[in-house]
């Protein structure tokens, strides 16, 4: 069994590739601990039609 | 109806129906409130009455037993008794200028409805009372009574209560230094969850829950009111459950407060510095008030 965490970040303005890159950096450096966790996916929820 | 149920509005609309039954007030209690005010209470007043007149706050059914603390206390007991019944917690002199304060309180109905949070906030409540006396909490204990050990509902209640008591204390660094447990079918639907907290302090740090004079500063601080609102004590404490699946106990779960021990720990740290010591002025002046508020804000900020 695997378990995980899901973070929803709300940003001001449009989700540009730069914003997404920033979110990925936050996920890799703070939100997840690479020793025990993997960042599985960082996506724009609106663009994904969620 | 206007948005605010003001006193004038209440006086002008005597027949407006109020949900006093849902808030745990009986018909005759509601009539007493109306008689005391000379009109129907506003919704805000009703909420306040329902809390203050609840079993939880006024001990309306157990008052006669609790009075024995007053009549059965001997002079020999009083010799070491620094603070007796009526305050947040009792205080006993243990010598060398040190005092120990104890508080034991039940959190039965919330623990039946939502075992984990009910028991956890029971611990939270007594820790608050120890802090309020000016003491530093050092340990917790618990005395538990559950229904028949082989009853399915007992299996629902026990693990949550045990985890709630232990988890809340642990988050505050308070060891659970002992306790006792009994299983008997008489407690089906009415488990008893009694938690005790012990604190230590210097005699001069004892604080009583009273203030005199005008112009005193009132500061409310702690974690924010949760989705449970403030009605939990009135909704739950005066309720009766029979332990059968259809008694509605677990359905009242939203009325149980959710504990926030981490926030409590912050309060724990700011309070001793915020309380004036006895030998200093009891009523802080404006400058000291500003300093106190700064101190509280700094301590609670995250």
């Amino acid at each position, binding site marked *: 069994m695997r378990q995980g965490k899901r973070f929803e970040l709300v940003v001001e303005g449009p989700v540009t590739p730069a914003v997404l890159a920033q979110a990925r950096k936050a996920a890799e450096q703070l939100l997840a601990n690479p*020793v*025990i966790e993997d960042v599985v996916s960082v996506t724009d929820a609106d663009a994904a039609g969620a | 109806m206007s948005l605010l149920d003001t006193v004038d509005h209440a006086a002008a609309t005597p027949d407006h129906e109020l949900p006093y039954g849902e808030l745990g007030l009986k018909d005759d209690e509601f009539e007493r409130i109306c008689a005391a005010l000379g009109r129907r209470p506003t919704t805000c007043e009703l909420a306040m009455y329902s809390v203050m007149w609840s079993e939880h706050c006024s001990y309306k059914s157990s008052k006669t037993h609790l009075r024995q603390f007053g009549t059965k206390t001997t002079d020999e007991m009083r010799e070491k008794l620094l603070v007796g019944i009526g305050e947040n917690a009792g205080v006993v002199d243990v010598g060398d200028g040190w005092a120990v304060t104890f508080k034991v309180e039940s959190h039965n109905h919330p623990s039946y409805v939502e075992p984990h949070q009910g028991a956890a906030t029971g611990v939270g409540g007594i820790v608050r009372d120890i802090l309020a006396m000016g003491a530093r909490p050092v340990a917790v204990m618990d005395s538990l009574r559950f229904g028949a050990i082989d009853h399915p509902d007992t299996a629902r209640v026990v693990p949550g209560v045990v985890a709630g008591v232990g988890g809340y204390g642990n988050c505050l660094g308070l060891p659970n230094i002992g306790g006792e447990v009994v299983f008997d079918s008489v407690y089906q639907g009415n488990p008893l969850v009694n938690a005790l907290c012990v604190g230590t302090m210097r005699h001069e740090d004892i604080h009583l829950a009273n203030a005199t004079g005008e112009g005193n500063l009132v500061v409310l601080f702690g974690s924010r009111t949760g989705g449970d609102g403030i009605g939990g004590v009135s909704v739950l404490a005066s309720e009766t459950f029979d332990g059968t699946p259809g008694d509605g106990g677990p359905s009242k779960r939203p009325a149980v407060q959710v504990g926030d021990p*981490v926030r409590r*720990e912050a309060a724990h740290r700011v309070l001793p510095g915020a309380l004036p010591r006895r030998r200093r002025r009891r009523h802080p002046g404006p400058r000291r008030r500003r300093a106190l508020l700064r101190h509280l804000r700094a301590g609670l900020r*995250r």
Partner: protein
Amino acid sequence: MKIGVVTFPGTLDDRDAARAVVRGGGEAVALWHADADLRGVDAVVLPGGFSYGDYLRAGAIASIAPVMGPVVEAARAGMPVLGICNGFQVLCEAGLLPGALVRNDVRTFVCRDQRLRVEDASTAWTSAFETGQEIVVPLKNGEGGYNADERTLDELEGEGRVVFRYLGGNPNGSRRDIAGVRDASGRVVGLMPHPEHATEPGYGPTEHGGGASGDGTDGLGFFTSVLTALASA
């Protein structure tokens, strides 16, 4: 010698840690999570508790608290730093020590008098012990399983950087029974068990004969060791 004891919001064992520092012969200096400097201390202890409620992950938010900037900088420059329990988690999250702590494999909180073997008595915090010596200090944690990838574990073993190992059964699923590790310099040490709770006769562990000291004060060696390390520096 001034030993700083850091208090994050939610830290619980700072009083005991400060008392242990004093019992060891040092001067305890209280450091607050929001401090921008270390107030002239010679060494730092990060005590146990639930820093910032352990929200996100145990020790994660504390590892980027303002006070950790100067702590990390000083540690890299050779200042002795000891992380106990939550403090160990903070040191791992801050990257001063390798690995991470995960939920106990038994899935419950564990509290017991724990036997440990001192695997490395050359560090700034363990010189009062002999390598191979057995000690007993309290252990109390919910997320104490030491974890790292095989390569890191092999490296730690190869470089002799495993400082403590659990004896008498692994209490929390830590890889290779590791209870504590050090950095390459031997100045930064982290462990899950609590030496600061075993520094005063009558208040420390009573099981296993009260440990090597016989009176439950095996933890005192941590706090005398650091003074020796500082005196010889």
